[in-house]
């Protein structure tokens, strides 16, 4: 039971954003995807989550898979309060709505909020929450359907170090509790260290590195060395990316 991606390619305006990407993520494993801005990381997540279609290649999902995504800016519905945001997929999907009574739904929402360390904010609207709280509500909404594939798009971007650590711990905790295959797109080395099992690096749509977190941090090849040392010189040209 794993998520398999085979020879995935996607072009925008005659330019490859993803070029022949193949990878596999096991159950209970977190894959980190790193790379400079515009390297195709978010496009990869959008294709896996079904927002975009690939030009070629194949994605093989595990049987009865449920994909969830935590967005970079949370993407909470600003016209709904926290409770309705988290309950949204259950309320709006016929097959899920039939399964639960109103009190069961309330219990599920409370339970998911508790899993991300939030309680008693059901009536608040997204605009009344801090950035870190919005991220966690976004996580709670993503996991409300008990997904077995969770995608995180820059989960710690723009957060203070302490909140980032908290978010990283929740990524690890949710993976364990749901035994899910997780993919984390990030720029932060702290997130890679704390929340990721294995790493791939994309550059100009191609996979230029894959290995363990230790291999990345040791800088076993010129790509990982340049990324970890944050150097502007190396095989990756950052000008114009």
């Amino acid at each position, binding site marked *: 039971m794993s998520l398999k991606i085979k020879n995935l390619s996607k072009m925008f305006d005659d330019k490859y954003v993803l070029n022949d990407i193949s990878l596999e993520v096991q159950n209970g494993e977190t894959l980190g995807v790193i790379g400079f801005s515009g390297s195709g990381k978010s496009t990869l997540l959008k294709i896996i989550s079904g927002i975009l279609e690939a030009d070629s290649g194949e994605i093989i999902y595990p049987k009865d898979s449920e994909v969830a995504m935590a*967005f970079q800016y949370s993407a909470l519905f600003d016209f709904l309060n926290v409770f309705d945001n988290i309950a949204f997929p259950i309320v709006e999907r016929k097959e899920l709505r039939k399964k639960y009574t109103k009190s069961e739904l309330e219990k599920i929402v409370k339970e998911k909020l508790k899993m991300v360390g939030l309680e008693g904010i059901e009536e608040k609207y997204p605009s009344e929450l801090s950035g870190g709280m919005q991220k966690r509500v976004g996580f709670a909404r993503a996991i409300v359907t008990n997904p077995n594939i969770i995608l995180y798009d820059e989960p710690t971007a723009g957060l203070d170090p302490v909140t980032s650590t908290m978010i990283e711990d929740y990524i690890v905790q949710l993976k364990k509790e749901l035994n899910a295959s997780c993919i984390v797109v990030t720029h932060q080395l702290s997130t890679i260290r704390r929340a990721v099992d294995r790493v791939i690096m994309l550059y100009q749509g191609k996979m230029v590195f894959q290995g363990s977190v230790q291999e990345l941090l040791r800088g076993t090849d010129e790509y990982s060395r340049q990324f970890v040392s944050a150097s502007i010189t190396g095989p990756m040209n950052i000008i114009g990316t």
Partner: protein
Amino acid sequence: MFELNKTLTYQSLMLLKGEIEDFIATVGNIGVIFVEVVKRIFSFKINFKETIEQSKRFAFDSLPISLTIVGMTSAIIAMQLAPELAKQGGADYTGTLSALVMVRELATIMSGFAIISMVGSSFASELASMAVTEQINAMTVLKVDYISYLIVPRFLAGVVFMPCVFILSAVFGLICAGYVSNWCADLSLLNYYTSLWHGLYLRDIFIALLKASFFGGTIALISCVHGCFTHGGAKEVGLATTKAVVWSFLGIAVWDFIFASFFYL
């Protein structure tokens, strides 16, 4: 100088090409979304809670401005028409002419303008804002069909409630015209309403209701498509709203021409 001209010509052509491509893409998007909306309506994938919510918005938000615009327009027309007809000895025709003008043309087009400015622009900016903050993408990932949730309710609200706004505005406009005729040309209200009755044809009313329904659906669909297909940030949200308003004006003008040609030519 030659190089500059060449560059300017090239840039102008590229700009024109971009505009044409944009136009074709928008028409294509409107067509595709319309087909998807119709499919969902016929397969009964309708979110009733949202449809009621959007219907309230469509009917109540636009009604005060629609009544004001239609009322003022009909009053102004009566103000100019009634004294002139009185001079020619045809004051008794004021009601007939008002009814013909209001029912066949002005009430629908004026309430259409009111709805575009009040509701269409608000649909477009709301959905564009949702699109740029990835809320529509989030719906897709959560396996909630955004067309059923966001567009179908707004489209249905437009199709059903634009005729209601039209009928109320037309009645209000004709009443305003009656009082103004009475004030400007000493035409008695009884004479005005008797004359008005002669200008009211059931066929005209049905055509106007059908036209209003087409206008409502067109405004809702165009506004939703411009909103949902927005990429970028705050600037693009503003542009999407402007485009939705312009395209909606264009849309109802085209429908108006088609209806006039088909039913009155």
